[in-house]
């Protein structure tokens, strides 16, 4: 592993290209690589990038060598609220300290104006720290993940009391689409995935500062039904290596009043069903997983349900999928419980973020 670390932390400089060329090369690559597109709910704007209809099964990776344990502890076992971000203009990984100072000043100024950040007394001091979360980037094109933390000390605490983290967030790009990354004009850094946790008021302040400083746009990353089904299938597939304990799905049916169904399947039986679906496609264990297999898997589960209750679950919406490896909710909230699958889950989410970016 001879990659010089310094070149990765600087923002990647891509070759100069006009927008027209980018769009043409984009379309050509999509046609040759991704095959038949699967229909998705909302694919806004002009990206012709389509969701992968096949992907490799995620292998558990021991990333404790690449990423420090403190950083890992920060990321896993917490529920993050996800957003997508358009590329940042003139963002430099080397100027993080100065950005942190600017953000602290911004938060203090907004509080003085009285904009709502209710954290117990008015004299709370906020300290912002921004750092690079080394080790998550998968390819040479991925910019390094940036971690933002807001810490505060309550108004009447002593000076030596430790600061408490009241908000944390990160900007990340894992296994980003290389064509897109290469086609970005100079000065743009693409970190499309934004996760946040903590006070809602602070989230909006941080976002508005990022928006005004780097001319980017934030939007909600709703994890749609297809992605939830992919996650259900992928996590079940992981049961071969790591125990998922159970596969729990939560549906809501449009009755009056709304009916919630929590369907929890024993992990061994879910894996048996998954294996039977893959075998029938004639695929071996190492090959890619196709969307048809995911669909058959879900159909098997819903038809078992139908045989007992006469209720068709596809009449409702799948709201949440959870296993011991993590949970995903349709409103864009995600929790990763195992560090071994952190990279693969973040890659999937990066892909979802790329889809939603309107340019």
């Amino acid at each position: 592993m001879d990659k010089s670390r310094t070149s990765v932390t600087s923002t990647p400089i891509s070759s100069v290209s006009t927008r027209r060329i980018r769009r043409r090369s984009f379309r050509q690559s999509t046609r040759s690589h991704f095959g038949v597109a699967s229909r998705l709910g909302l694919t806004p704007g002009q990206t012709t990038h389509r969701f992968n209809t096949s992907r490799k099964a995620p292998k558990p990776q021991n990333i404790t060598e690449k990423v420090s344990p403190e950083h890992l502890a920060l990321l896993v076992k917490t529920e993050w609220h996800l957003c997508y971000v358009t590329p940042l203009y003139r963002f430099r990984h080397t100027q993080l300290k100065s950005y942190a100072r600017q953000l602290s000043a911004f938060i203090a100024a907004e509080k003085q104006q009285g904009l709502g950040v209710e954290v117990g007394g008015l004299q709370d001091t906020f300290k912002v720290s921004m750092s690079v979360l080394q080790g998550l980037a998968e390819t040479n094109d991925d910019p390094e993940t940036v971690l933002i933390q807001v810490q505060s000390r309550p108004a009447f605490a002593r000076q030596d009391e430790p600061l408490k983290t009241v908000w944390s967030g990160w900007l990340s790009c894992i296994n980003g689409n290389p064509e897109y990354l290469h086609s970005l004009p100079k000065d743009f850094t693409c970190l499309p995935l934004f996760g946040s946790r903590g006070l809602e008021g602070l989230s909006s302040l941080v976002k508005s500062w990022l928006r005004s400083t780097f001319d980017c746009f934030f939007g909600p990353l709703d994890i749609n039904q297809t992605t939830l089904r992919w996650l259900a299938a992928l996590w079940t597939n992981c049961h071969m290596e790591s125990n998922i304990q159970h596969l729990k799905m939560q549906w809501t049916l449009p009755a009056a009043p709304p009916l919630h169904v929590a369907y929890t399947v024993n992990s061994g039986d879910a894996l048996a069903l998954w294996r039977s679906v893959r075998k029938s496609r004639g695929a071996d264990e190492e090959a890619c997983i196709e969307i048809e297999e995911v669909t058959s898997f879900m159909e098997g589960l819903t038809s078992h349900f139908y045989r007992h209750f006469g209720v068709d679950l596809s009449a409702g919406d799948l709201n949440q999928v959870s296993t011991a490896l993590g949970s995903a909710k349709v409103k864009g909230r995600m929790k990763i419980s195992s560090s071994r699958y952190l990279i693969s889950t973040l890659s999937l989410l990066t892909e979802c973020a790329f889809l939603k970016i309107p340019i």
Partner: protein
Amino acid sequence: MDDPAKFLLRRLVRRIPAQMLKATLEKWGRLNAEQRESLNFSQSKWALTQELEALCEESRLTVKHIAELEMIYITENPNQMMWHAFQLLDPEDGALAVELMQFKELFKCHLRELVRNVSVKIKKHTDEAVWIRMSWGEGFSRLSHLNATYVVHYLQTPYVFVSGLSPKNKPLLLQVLTLSTKHERIKDANLSGRKLTAIRDLLLRQYEHVFPTKYPSPLTERNQSVSNLHTEKEQAEASAKRHQMAGQAFGNGVLPALQSAVYKLETKFKDPTNQTMTEQDEPFRCVVKFSSTNLLESLRHCASSGIASTPVAPLLSSIPLKGRNYFVITDKSPSANS
């Protein structure tokens, strides 16, 4: 007032919402009118608790009196605790004739035989229910009034509802109940929920039933489904049939507000399109939980709107039919599908 009494009083004042506190204290009757007037109900609960404590000290009230207050509150508002239903079986000859005084005597007498360290208060509520509050003590230690068990029994019915019972005391209480109601056995009815009124109405079948008829719509106004002019003509008959079957399975009008149902399924996976799974001998284990603010109404709406297929699946219609909301389904049990 000693510490347990103070603690119980504090917890009770925290629990009772401000607007009900005045009425509950009045019903309690342990404080005279003058004392009640002196309380300022608009201040914070903490300050109110201090005032109440002072008044109770004045009147030399003990923990037993505070327990009375708790019982009055719970009797009026039973829908906040988790209730479990039990069914009494094999009544003896005199079972139907057991009335209140006899039940009280038998209960206290049998309880004394089995347990020494317990305090019991029995009261009859206006709607024919007998309420029992029990505080248990560990061995020879003092009684703990904080985790009281509440029992509700409607005389001459075979149902008992219990809340706050620890596994240790369960066999004792069940035995006492069986003996004092003159039955042979008692079993778990597999029905539980937060709303006592709902599970009571379900078991005692106090809601509007619909009976199967040969001519389903004698009154055409009854079967008004959601009207959409374009589909009405085509769908009218199918829709009326769905409504009729949904009503038969669950009932008409307002249904008891049951909130959840749990099914533990251990049946085999049978799917003609998936030979591999069908050939397996082991059952496909899963747990399904339905929940809603009013489960029975949601299910009825699913059946009448077509989300659930009609005739309603036996697993779903067993909830009101058998009056239970916890099921374990295996291939051998008669209620499993094919």
